[in-house]
């Protein structure tokens, strides 16, 4: 049986999952080869939501292109915007006021919690539990309300601009974030009660979808899928940007390498984000929220690269400038694309019913993969 895996033989059936399927989190098309209930091969077909964002950016100025990146990984839009802003700042060589830095980190971490929160609900829904979804959305909603008050949007923020942030934080911001922390801490036990401690859930997660550290590295996995296999890859720790080197937080590593390890990484990461927010929320320095920049930004000739840690892994922005007002070429390194490539390896030989659960633990956001 084992040597047949990955090869089509007589008796194999090819089935299509998606592009529009309730379990695929967006328009991802999987062509699955199965023998009985055993998966032999999974081929993801991409391109259903390709918007040619990289090409689009070449005709937009350095202020304008940032908003497009909110539409890639829409659950980490702040962090995507942050990467672009940092990359442009690298080229401009501007100093960002410390107030802006703190606000940016606060927003990033709130986004991370919101994203993991949504993933947690969707993950449980993939396994057939519907209630956790609403519990997760309750907490996520209060983050969205905070964002709405300060940035004016709930998903596609466009709040980080080269030089700082677009607007100062709302006067209510600190109070509401503290309210959220209190709410989160009172509700986080419910998560364990409802899902993590459930034996049925654990049996479906443990020992399924094993990804060894070597494979995680060779497939280019980053973020929770890699850290679930024990590969240390947190950009906030390894290549600190902004003020992450002054903050106290742990990089979450699990060694299981299975679906449950990836699950635990995200759940524990939320607590670390809360820890970061708690350190900063009372210490937002006074001052400007934006550095003075020219109305028309021009990057010097050269290449600039900036990577950040989004909720899904390493996100990179690569700008090639010819010295003009628009980039010559922009390349985004999106975490979802590399994580998806490990899916085939992960599911080979396991049962069809576990496929959706394994996809869930990769936390795929399809617009991020397709761009």
């Amino acid at each position, binding site marked *: 049986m084992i040597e047949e895996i990955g090869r089509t033989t007589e008796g194999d059936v090819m089935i299509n999952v998606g592009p529009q399927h309730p379990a695929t989190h967006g328009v991802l098309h999987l062509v699955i080869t199965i023998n009985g209930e055993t998966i032999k091969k999974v081929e993801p077909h991409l391109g259903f939501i390709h918007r040619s964002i990289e090409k689009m950016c070449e005709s937009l100025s350095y202020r304008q292109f940032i908003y497009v990146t909110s539409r890639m990984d829409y659950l980490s839009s702040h962090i995507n915007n942050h990467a672009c802003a940092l990359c442009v700042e690298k080229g401009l060589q501007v100093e960002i006021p410390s107030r802006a830095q703190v606000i940016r980190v606060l927003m990033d971490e709130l986004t991370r919690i919101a994203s993991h929160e949504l993933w947690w609900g969707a993950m449980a829904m993939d396994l057939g539990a519907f209630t956790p979804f609403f519990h997760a959305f309750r907490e996520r909603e209060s983050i969205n309300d905070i964002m709405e*008050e300060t940035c*004016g949007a709930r998903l596609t923020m*466009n709040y980080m601009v080269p030089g700082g942030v677009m607007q100062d934080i709302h006067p209510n911001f600190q109070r509401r974030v503290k309210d959220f922390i209190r709410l989160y801490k009172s509700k986080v036990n419910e998560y364990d*009660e*409802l899902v993590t401690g459930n*034996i049925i859930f654990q049996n479906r997660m443990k020992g399924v979808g094993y990804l060894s550290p070597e494979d995680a590295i060779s497939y280019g996995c980053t973020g929770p899928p890699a850290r679930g296999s024990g590969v240390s890859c947190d950009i906030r720790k390894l290549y600190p940007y902004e003020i992450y080197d002054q903050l106290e937080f742990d990089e979450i590593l699990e060694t299981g390498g299975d679906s449950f390890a990836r699950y635990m990484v995200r759940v524990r990461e939320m607590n670390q984000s809360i820890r970061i927010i708690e350190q900063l929320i009372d210490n937002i320095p006074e001052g400007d929220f934006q550095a003075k920049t020219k109305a028309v930004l021009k990057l010097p000739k050269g290449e600039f690269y900036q990577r950040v840690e989004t909720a899904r892994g390493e996100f990179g922005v690569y700008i090639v400038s010819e010295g003009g007002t628009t980039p010559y070429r922009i390349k985004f390194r999106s975490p979802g694309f590399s994580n998806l490539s490990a899916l085939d390896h992960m599911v080979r030989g396991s049962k069809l019913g576990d496929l959706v659960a394994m996809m869930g633990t990769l936390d795929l956001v399809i617009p991020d993969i397709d761009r």
Partner: protein
Amino acid sequence: MFIVKYIKEVFSGLKSLAIGLRLTLYYFTHHKEIITQQYPDNRETLNLPERFKGEVVMLHDENNEHACTGCTACELACPNGTIKIITKFDIATDGKKKKALDKFVYHLELCTMCNLCIVACPTDAIKMAQTFEHSVYDRSELTKILNKPGSEIREGVE
């Protein structure tokens, strides 16, 4: 031995199910903790934060005057070509020709609510409105002229 293990598993599974269901039952009986909003029934009481980006509007005061000089800074800042500024020449009282705004054309269907035009405007003539129910029957209704008919530029705005 296998049977015992199997039965044990079934019971521990049931137990953890019951723990989860206890929480569901708790919320079932505690309506106060439910935060679902009854939209659209709560339209009247719905309060959106003042920064909410719903649609670009032009501010007019009670004399039907606005602050837009027709400088096209917003048009240049917009990534999507949402704004089109059409200017005209006014004859001022001293007989000089002066550039002024004729029509501020705004294509709501192209707007991504990125706020860049608002930031770019030197005279704060435009702002974001908190509307969000934008559905219409025909897309031509989404193209709007933001300056009101007969409106003029406010005295002293350069």
